């Protein structure tokens, strides 16, 4: 075993939102003398605002730091992870590239939903976990209590955990030393054929797809002919290097190291996260474990408001996919909305980011239909089809039963909100699991709940009912059979396919009423009456009417009114352009999603 590998540590930092991950990362980088600057990849730059609003940090590129301890120089590679449950596959691959994980816990907040979720992921990937208690500078900090909580709830030793304040720069060296002392070093075979894990990638306009890799066995250098084991594609390496944090080319990436490989890869879909890189000639015998085809979880239809902008939308989606291989889409036609795309996302956040980018970066006016999940529809003839567009649900007569995806949800909350949370989960067909009192101030609630009940406003509802104190996390569980029906909405007697929803039979009537009511407020008055009807299988279950516009007149228009009035009409017309004509009814683009609001 080469001495060199003994002096490498590959680790990441996991935490619940706002517990101090970025600040600690910044401190570590500063203290090791690496240039302290957040290197932001282009793809992240433009979604910054949205991510900030959601409390997600911008990803760091894996940063190589040098630290001298006990007279010896060590290389510390910090790999950053996206903080959101939508991207858990990517998180897991980033973890797989490490040997250790620093678990940051806020000394005043304690263990929270994502703390747990991330720890489990880290344990699954057999990482050594180093708890670090942060924010000890806060008056409400209770480090000893939190240490105990970690031991009780997570089950890892925490009594000797470094207590730090990343913000104030207290005890950072303790963290660095613990990294060196507690985390194992890589232990790969330097003479074996190359085996490297792609744990991330991004697209560079000049270099093509840049693969962020962890070299497990062997080494790689410029000129090597490499093969990606899952896709089978072969490329010639044009550049290798590491991040300090700027990309710094080098001669060779050696066993145990973390860095990047460029090989004139034209499509990012060729550089799949989780894939194994090896040599084209004399490849490794087995690929690294853990590779998964990314599966979308949430689906919605995206249509251009102006039908003639279809090509622009297509182009925009293609460009977005360049840097986001988890975005899936295919052309779709709606009787109501014309030509568009059915898109699959990793989750609601992912969907919102894509929507925002389409609107902001590409300047497109789009209509997004209500986000939904994918159902497994079992027909009487034995076939099973997957349906993610409610309009594609087969005839009721042919359906034997329908299955929907369920999730295991974990909610952390102060005890006084337990009641209201239980009400919320129950109203969403949640099946109560364990209720664990972690300590006097925190309870953990486990629920099994249908995914389609939480994809829209569950999180917001949870936050508002608990004044923001509760946190939640979930993972996909299994598909279960449920009594599901298709709820149709008719405008002026015609079914508007873009408004159809798949809902549970028990709540269908109520939902129909709520939606009809909502639409009555959202659809502006037109020159004729607009009857709104909710129907299940042809049977009308709710009805509302938007009265016809009968008075819209400007009684005075003289010299001083002309410009003002002209501008006002122009503005109103612009507003109308954001509407979509369904049959002859003008419907604002956000009506399609607004119908999902339950609370």
């Amino acid at each position, binding site marked *: 075993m080469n001495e060199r590998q003994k002096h490498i540590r590959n680790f990441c930092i996991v935490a619940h939102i706002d517990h101090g991950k970025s600040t600690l990362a910044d401190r570590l980088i500063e203290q090791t003398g690496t240039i302290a600057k957040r290197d932001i990849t282009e793809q992240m730059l433009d979604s910054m605002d949205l991510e900030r609003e959601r409390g997600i940090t911008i990803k760091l590129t894996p940063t190589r730091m040098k630290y001298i301890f006990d007279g010896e120089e060590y290389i510390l590679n910090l790999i950053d992870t996206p903080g959101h449950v939508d991207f858990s596959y990517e998180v897991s691959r980033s973890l797989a590239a490490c040997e250790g994980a620093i678990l940051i816990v806020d000394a005043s907040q304690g263990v929270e939903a994502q703390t747990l979720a991330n720890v489990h992921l880290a344990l699954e990937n057999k990482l050594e976990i180093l708890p670090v208690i942060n924010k000890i500078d806060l008056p409400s900090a209770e480090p000893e209590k939190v240490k105990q909580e970690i031991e009780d709830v997570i089950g890892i030793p925490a009594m000797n955990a470094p207590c730090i304040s990343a913000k104030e720069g207290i005890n950072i060296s303790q963290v660095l030393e613990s990294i060196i002392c507690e985390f194992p070093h890589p232990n790969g075979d330097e003479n074996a054929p190359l085996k490297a894990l792609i744990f991330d990638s991004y697209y560079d306009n000049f270099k093509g797809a840049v693969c962020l890799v962890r070299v497990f066995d062997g080494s790689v250098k410029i000129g090597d002919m490499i093969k990606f084991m899952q896709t089978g594609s072969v490329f010639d390496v044009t550049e290798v290097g590491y991040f300090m944090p700027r990309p710094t080319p080098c001669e060779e990436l050696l066993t145990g190291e973390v860095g990047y490989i460029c090989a004139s890869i034209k499509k990012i879909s060729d550089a799949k996260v989780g894939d194994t890189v090896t040599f084209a000639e004399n490849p490794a015998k087995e690929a690294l474990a853990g590779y998964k085809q990314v599966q979308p979880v949430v689906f919605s239809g995206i249509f251009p408001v102006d039908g003639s902008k279809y090509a622009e939308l297509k182009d925009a989606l293609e460009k977005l996919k360049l840097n986001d291989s988890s975005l899936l889409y295919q052309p779709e036609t709606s009787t109501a909305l014309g030509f568009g795309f059915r898109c699959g996302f990793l989750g609601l956040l992912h969907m919102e980011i894509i929507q925002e980018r389409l609107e902001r970066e590409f300047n497109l006016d789009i209509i997004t239909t209500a986000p939904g999940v994918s159902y497994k529809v079992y027909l009487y003839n034995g076939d099973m089809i997957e349906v993610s567009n409610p309009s594609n649900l087969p005839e009721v007569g042919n359906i034997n039963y329908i299955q929907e995806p369920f999730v295991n949800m974990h909610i952390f909350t102060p005890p006084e909100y337990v009641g209201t949370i239980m009400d919320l989960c129950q109203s969403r067909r949640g099946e109560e699991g364990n209720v664990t009192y972690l300590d006097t101030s925190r309870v953990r609630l486990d629920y099994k709940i249908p995914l389609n009940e939480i994809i829209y406003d569950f999180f917001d509802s949870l936050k508002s009912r608990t004044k923001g104190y509760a946190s939640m996390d979930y993972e996909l569980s299994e598909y279960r059979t449920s009594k599901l029906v298709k709820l149709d909405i008719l405008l002026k007697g015609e079914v508007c396919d873009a408004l159809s929803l798949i809902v549970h039979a028990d709540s269908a009537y109520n939902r129909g009423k709520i939606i009809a009511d909502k639409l009555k407020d959202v659809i502006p008055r037109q020159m004729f009456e607009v009857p709104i009807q909710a129907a299940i299988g042809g049977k009308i279950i709710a009805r509302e009417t938007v009265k016809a516009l*009968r008075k819209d007149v400007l009684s*005075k228009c003289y010299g001083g009114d002309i410009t003002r009035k002209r501008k006002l*009409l122009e503005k109103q017309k612009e507003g*109308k352009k954001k509407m979509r004509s369904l049959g002859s009814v003008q419907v604002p683009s956000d009506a399609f999603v607004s119908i999902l609001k339950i609370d």
Partner: protein
Amino acid sequence: MEMAWGGNPFEKEKQMSLYIHIPFCNSKCAYCNFISFENNDKQIPKYLDALYEEIDERGKEYKDYKITTIYIGGGTPSILPEGEVDELMQFIRSRFTILYDESVTIEANPKSLTKEKAKEYFNAGINRISLGLQTDNPSLLKLLNRPHNYEDFEKAVEYAKSAGFSDINADILLGIPNQTLRDVKITLDKLIKLPITHISAYGLILEKGTPISKSIDTGKLKICNEDLANKMYDYTVKRLNEAGFYRYEISNFAKESYASKHNLNYWNRGEYLGLGLASHSFVNAEHWHNTENLQKYLKNPSDCKEDIEKQTLKTAKQETIMLSLRTEAGLDIREFNREFDANFMQDYKMQIKSLLEANLITIQDLVVTINDFNVSNAIIEEFF
């Protein structure tokens, strides 16, 4: 960026209307959001000085123009001290070239119009007078904070008539909170009996910040229900028609030959020059207005233009459509095509089709007219 469009490159006979603003009132009506001030004894002379300065300057600037109509509006022009209007008219005539058969209107308030003033106006060459009645119902007048009663109005009409005026307009309001259809009927019946040649019937517009608007927001007053407002309008049209007043624009009714030439100029997208505080102008394909700030105006009356906007082909078309469709005469398609080098029926094919189908417009002899003025805004918007 849209190109500027319009103007008169060939220097044909240039004509325009003049509007003069007198921004002073003795009291503010509850619905008014015009630029006007109360308690003015000191301000009025200063204002007139500034106004004369502006008139002098503009007269030079526009010496090539012939003035077709003049309108003295406000505020309340009739609160100007005796003799001032006469002087003003003389000064205007000395600085501008007025066409022979001009129309000159002055707005007057029934309370402030005295027998003497009426005579003064007529002798100064004003040939049309516009009096604000709004309603004959005393409690409604109080609600509106009008300073007069119906008898004052009748007297004012009498003074105007005996001073020599044959062209008299009355302004009335429809849709006043608490107003009933019967109120409207009574007001119209009374008006018809008087020697009035023109009636402007306006639907009350609730402007933000006005006392009446605030009362509605706080719930003290209830807004006039939409259907009732429509009924009032429809009834007014019918009743006035019977009495020989023909609706020639959304809110304007006139006996034969008494349509307001000054206002028709607006609706034909003609040129007009505004004089005085906050007045609006449209000359040589440019829109602008004078400052609304009294001190600024007093300081620099000849150079206080704001919001100058050059006309583009797009805005010109929008205005033409917006203004002509307000009138009974409608939009002349041939004129439109000629002026804008356009093909109206083609360019607006979709809208025309759906509006015709919904029976909201009529196209006859290449003229487009709106069938129901009550939804005229929504119709006009289709063409934007």
